């Protein structure tokens, strides 16, 4: 019987970062869904079963990561999904206020990020 692979929703506007990170996550055995901004991510979440983890870039056009987090907090199903933020910005006040969320700074320290994802999805990715 096939084991259901853990799914990660990657919300990142930069096509190259998204492409490269998705490839690594797939290599690690995760299934990856892509969204290019907060609005696309909400759309995805409305129509699909919840992912195990959301990787969320903060600075994005159309709907940024902060706005996505605001909208998510009002929906119980969504706020149950762990979110790891990734940010290339400087440590500003808004970033500091995200106390409850892990923030990984770009450039990403991959072992730490992958370690955190593995801890969150214990039956996580089966290496492809």
């Amino acid at each position, binding site marked *: 019987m096939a084991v259901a692979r853990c799914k990660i929703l990657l919300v990142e*506007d*930069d*096509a*190259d*970062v998204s*492409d*490269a*990170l998705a*490839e*690594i996550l797939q*290599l*690690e055995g995760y299934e990856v869904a892509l969204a290019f901004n907060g609005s696309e991510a909400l759309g995805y979440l409305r129509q699909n079963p919840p992912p195990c983890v959301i990787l969320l870039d903060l*600075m*994005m*056009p159309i709907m*940024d990561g902060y706005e996505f987090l605001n909208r998510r907090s009002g929906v119980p199903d969504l706020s149950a999904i762990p979110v790891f933020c990734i940010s*290339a*910005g*400087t440590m*500003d006040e808004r970033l500091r206020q995200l106390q409850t969320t892990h923030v990984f700074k*770009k*450039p*990403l320290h*991959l072992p730490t990020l992958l370690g955190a994802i593995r801890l969150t999805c214990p039956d996580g990715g089966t*290496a492809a």
Partner: protein
Amino acid sequence: MEIEQRPSGMPEVGDVAWGAHFCQFYGQREDLIDSLVPFFKAGLEHNEQCLWVTSEPFRAADARAMLGAAVRDLDQRIARGQIEIIDHHDWYMRAGDRTASEVLQGWVDRHDAALAGGYDGLRLTGNTYWLERNDWAGFREYESRVTRTFEGKRIIGLCSYCSSKCQGTDVLDVIRNHQFALVREDGEWQLIESAALKEAKQELRELNRQLEDRVKQRTAELEDALQIRDQFLSVASHELKTPITSLQLYVEGLLLSYAREPVAPEVATRRLDKIKGQCGRLERLINQLLDVSRATSGGRLPMDVEDVDLAELTRAACEASGEALRRAGCELVVDADRPVNGSWDPMRLEQVLANLLNNAVRHAPGTRVVVEVREVDDRAVLTVRDGGPGVPEGESARIFERFVQAGPRPDNGGFGLGLWIVREIAEAHGGEATVDSQPGSGAAFTVSLPRQPGS
């Protein structure tokens, strides 16, 4: 420059600046006591060397007694030469037949000696009671030169005039020759300022006010500049870190794959191409920063001019940006069929087009983007028109400034340098860059270039 203020010792006068030369009109002996005693007390207490030339009705012995009552260690101060109190007879004997110039030079020498002796400056007073009618003209001439002599020196001079010995016009002469005058009226000292001083003070107040306004304005400008710089640093950090992140992820992905199994050459080539692409992206960002640094330090952007067909260059640039426009949902229309030749830097013009098209991708996604190249009055005119939200009212000039990101979203990416570089390049060719926009109905960016530089 701050002008050092010294206490006059007289509450009606307050502090005075070095170089002060003022006078008093006294009626009786008591008037001299209650002005000159505090005047010299203040000088002695503030490390000034003092010279008090007395005259009737308040002679040197009186002065020593009255000042001694106010300054307990007066005798020691006299002994060590901080103050000399002398009757005008004796002073006159010493001065002899000196000319006005010699007397004035005497003050300067005394001032220099005071400074050399470690004092802060020189404070002096003279009483003109002894002055006879026929000396008046010469003395008036001397007084008129005192103010100029004291200028720039650390001297404070107070001249005492006996009211009853002055005729009407004398008073006017005296007031004119001093910066201000004190008059004893109903037991109180009243300050009389000359018109010139009043005017100068008024002017000073006005200058002060203007200076304060300028300081306020400059401070606000600096605060704005700091805020723009902070915003820029935050944006620059984001912009530079993004390609570094994808570069790093591509490399790590490749290493991860290799660790598992040999990677097929075509897969490796595809990933290495992406890595190369990120290096190019970083290089472009760094070149943008170098352009700013060059232009900010007063230089023009370096130009490499050759014969160029702007229409052909535009078609190629549109093709290069085509993918990005498609992904942003823009419909691209290129109207550049007829050659428009001129002498320009083709790399820089590609930069202009890339920046204008990128601007449309960021600010006008999902709209129709029309690129036109025309020849108008021997000038090449390039227009990029989008159907986006347009430029907010009042921002048309500002969007061409460095680090400015107009529009409702500040986090659209980019350094905020794109349009600034467009304008710099246009101006370096002797041309101009403008925008025509109504909020809500798109923006048309036009770059107009002379066909030959300098024409």
